């Protein structure tokens, strides 16, 4: 796996994780105590779609762990692992979106949102609470409620802001069918 990492992916992981930290620290919108509308996940989804599953996974993991460490002084591992999970699977399946072709229209938007919603639903409603129970022995109904809230807000955010980011990004790529023979 190490050999397959291009220099560009490595830099994307590094810079991506840095942006993740800054967005998580400064650009999250508090809606209730301990609950934020995160702007990090739309960004993570964008990076996963552009740079692939390994970049997505590592941006989620490094970014989230560092963000926790420098803002709370401790790392909440169960949710960090969910960021890794979300980045990896969005990146893995989103190869079919093929953003570099420069087309991100209704079909791709639907596909992307289907992927992100199902990956995040599994991540927040299943993986996060189960890890919370295993690692921290927290009460089940509390962590599942947190998981459902996180799932709803993050799926909505990625659906809105993530889609928007991808549409704008696709416009900066030259379309694969933009040349025509005369």
């Amino acid at each position, binding site marked *: 796996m190490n050999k397959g990492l291009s220099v560009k992916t490595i830099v994307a992981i590094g810079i991506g994780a840095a942006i993740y930290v800054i967005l998580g620290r400064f650009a999250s919108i508090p809606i209730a105590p301990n609950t934020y509308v995160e702007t990090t996940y739309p960004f993570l989804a964008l990076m996963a779609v552009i740079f692939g599953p390994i970049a997505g996974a590592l941006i989620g993991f490094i970014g989230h762990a560092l963000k926790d460490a420098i*803002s709370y*002084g401790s790392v909440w591992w169960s949710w960090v692992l969910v960021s890794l999970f979300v980045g990896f699977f969005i990146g893995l399946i989103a190869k079919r979106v093929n953003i570099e072709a420069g087309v991100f229209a209704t079909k791709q938007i639907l596909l992307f949102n289907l992927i992100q919603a199902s990956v995040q639903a599994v991540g927040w409603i299943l993986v996060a609470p189960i890890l919370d129970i295993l690692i921290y022995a927290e009460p089940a109904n509390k962590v599942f409620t947190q998981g459902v809230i996180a799932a709803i807000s993050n799926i909505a955010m990625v659906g809105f802001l993530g889609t928007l980011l991808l549409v704008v990004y696709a416009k900066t790529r030259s379309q694969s069918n933009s040349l025509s023979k005369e």
Partner: protein
Amino acid sequence: MAVEMLTYIKKQSPVHELSGVTKLIIFLCWSTAAMLTYDTWVLLALLVISFVLFKISKIKVSEIRFVLLFILFFLLLNNIAIYLFSPQEGVKIYGTSHVIWDIAGRYNITLEQLFYHLNITLKYFVVIPAALLFVVTTNPSEFASSLNRIGIPYKIAYSVSLTLRYIPDIQREFRSIAQAQQARGSDLSKNEKLTKRIKNASVIIMPLIFSSLERIEVISNAMELRGFGKKKKRTWYRATPFRRGDYFTIVIGVILLIASLVVTFHDGSRFYNPFTLR
């Protein structure tokens, strides 16, 4: 906007002099032990040791007060949430019920529940000093070389070092974009409705992300030109050699981890149960 972040605090102390690898290994042992155990005695012992380490490191509480307040607030909320959702969790875990105060229905206060909350809070207090010390006493550039030395591929270690290098830059850029957009009237504070705030956040995020994508191109071209990734290994500019103190600390750390696991699991349960012993 001026939210403080934890960064490296340069000082002269035994903890600062340890190599980054040692601190990383200790930090990992420490958080594994704290994560797995629920044994009150183990937690108390770890807590005492971490206070001692804190004293040795010469870091003052005033230097990290803002984070501590933040964590205490978070802990309080978490405890309240646990109680609201599951006031009988302690009874479930410890198997007995000593009611000390009846409020209403299942919301009575039991000794078991209080003990469970004490343990959860202790668990946090054990991890916090260790993690804080690690962040505050490890030079960021040394951190990446430490990751490489404990077996993480150097390309990934290098991404981590890039992250640490670019956090301040991106923070500065984020601020200037945010101020420019605020000058143009986009409001992120509570005065706006939620949907409007999300929209306003996106006008800051968009330019930040797209300028950073360009930055990725520039940096990766520069690295490619310098032949990054052509060899199997690389050396690090900042890597402290191992001294006797490092070996000593690692041995103690591993012994502590094993001891805490043995004490925790010798009776087949993660929890120390003071209620059935009587």
